[in-house]
């Protein structure tokens, strides 16, 4: 066999290896997910979804987790969106290569790489202790808001950038102030992208457990949070609690809880895609 022929065969083998490298992890993930759904399907029922945790695995439910997660992401979004969009507007419309804007950007890119548990320590030190919120829903939401802030800012900036400069210039030429242009021209057009960013941020927040554990979300909660100041739990932490138990029966609960978490995530992402498509249709350029 000639050298060239060996080379050609070698190349084919290499491309096959590369394809395996792409496909194998996906196949493994799929198998693991199917296995998990199989294990957890037996525990899924209305009683599971509407029940409270219990010492008996078969009677345990995840309502506090679902409700807690729900409240948490609403408050998180309420905090993170105005600040995130405001920061994005400042960086794209007002700051634009100023030294201050640069400094903010450097901070943002560093913060995006900080492990989530460090945000937990931040929340513990500042929100729980110094600001006296205690181990409350509000402290958790503030912590998560800081965590997802870089995501909101990045997505909002991308969205703002897609608005063509010609539209801005047209508005300025009519005598509008910068804020008028921003509020009436840029933001409405950037809205689909900002919404997508919000959903991305919320998707990230709903899957997080570590920073909330540090801030003081409880693992065993038999009540629903009544106010911003009350203790709380979230779905991932409930699953974590079950996985950590030595008794095997709780593992099925953990699987079921994970399935619920995945379904919620899938719904949110589908919502994002659908919303995006619908809002894009309204575009006239």
């Amino acid at each position, binding site marked *: 066999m000639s050298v*060239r022929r060996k080379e*050609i065969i070698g190349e084919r083998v290499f491309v096959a290896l590369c394809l395996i490298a792409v496909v194998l992890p996906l196949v493994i993930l799929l198998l693991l997910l199917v296995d998990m759904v199989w294990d957890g399907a037996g525990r899924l029922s209305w009683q599971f979804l509407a029940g409270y945790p219990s010492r008996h695995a078969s009677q345990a439910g995840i309502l506090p987790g679902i409700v807690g997660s729900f409240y948490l992401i609403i408050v998180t979004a309420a905090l993170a969106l105005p600040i995130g969009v405001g920061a994005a507007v400042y960086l794209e419309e007002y700051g634009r290569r100023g030294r201050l804007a640069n400094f903010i950007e450097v901070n943002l890119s560093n913060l995006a790489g900080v492990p989530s548990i460090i945000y937990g320590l931040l929340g513990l030190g500042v929100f729980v202790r110094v600001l006296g919120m205690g181990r409350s829903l509000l402290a958790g939401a503030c912590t998560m808001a800081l965590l997802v802030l870089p995501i909101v800012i990045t997505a909002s900036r991308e969205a703002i950038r897609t608005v063509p400069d010609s539209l801005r210039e047209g508005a300025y030429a009519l005598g509008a102030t910068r804020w008028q242009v921003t509020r009436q021209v840029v933001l409405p057009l950037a809205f689909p992208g900002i919404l997508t960013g919000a959903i991305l941020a919320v998707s990230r927040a709903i899957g997080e457990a570590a920073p909330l554990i540090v801030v003081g979300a409880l693992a065993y909660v038999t009540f629903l949070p009544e106010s911003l100041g009350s203790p709380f739990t979230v779905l991932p932490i409930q699953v974590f609690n079950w996985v950590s138990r030595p008794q095997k029966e709780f593992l099925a609960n953990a699987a079921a809880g994970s399935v619920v978490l995945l379904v919620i995530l899938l719904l949110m992402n589908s919502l994002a895609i659908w919303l995006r498509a619908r809002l894009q249709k309204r575009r006239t350029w």
Partner: protein
Amino acid sequence: MNLSVEQTSESPPSSVLVRVNPETGQGQTILKSNVPVPKIKARGLSAWFGAKQVLREIDLYIYPRSVTAIIGPSGCGKSTFIRCLNRLHEMVPGARLAGQVLLDDQDINAPQVDPVLLRRRVGMVFQKPNPFPTMSVRDNVLAGLRLCGKLKREQADEIVERALRQAALWDEVKDRLREPGAGLSGGQQQRLCIARTLAVEPEVVLMDEPCSALDPIATARIEALIHEIKHQYTIVIVTHNMQQAARVSERTAFFLMGELIEVGETSRLFTSPRDRRTEDYLTGKFG
């Protein structure tokens, strides 16, 4: 009486008209042509990028051990033409080809032809010097041989010196062989790329506007080196600079809007072009 056209075994081979005696099988040379056998023949060559046709039915012969220049205004298909000669054209997504290109009478687009092996016989120097950024001067020269797996360690130094001398670069870099190739000046980088191409010892060297990114002094150096090496290689040079074509080549082909308008001996083409359009281009009426 059987007449046939054959090639002699001289170098370069010439064409001869031979009469073969059917009984004895002996051949007798009747007529010998002064024109050598073409190294490359393009027959009815057409090329497209997607739906846009950029070359129309080109019929052009390239003769060995000489320089053929291809001139014409921007966008006339000159670069596309030479990229068809080493099968780089097909690497662009959506690119298409029709017609034939023959190297030593062998169709280079035939299914059994390996483009990789073709490119070891037909080398190319690009418009913008492209030395490999992670390699030293020495490694750049040897890169072609290394990538083809044909480098013999013991010969490396000798090959480097020979290629750099042919590219008229040896004296300037002989003390800097281990320095990064990208650290040289523009003209030096282009000569390095030429050395790299020559190190592989191709038969044909295609040059796509090799001097257009260089200053006049560097250009003159490269033209001088083309003069030196043309007796060893078949050179096809695309240039938008008519004077360069006149200085450097034996034959010139004029392209316009994807068509070959006229081809002929350089001095004849420049002094008495046969086609009106050639004359207009040469006198600067457009271009």
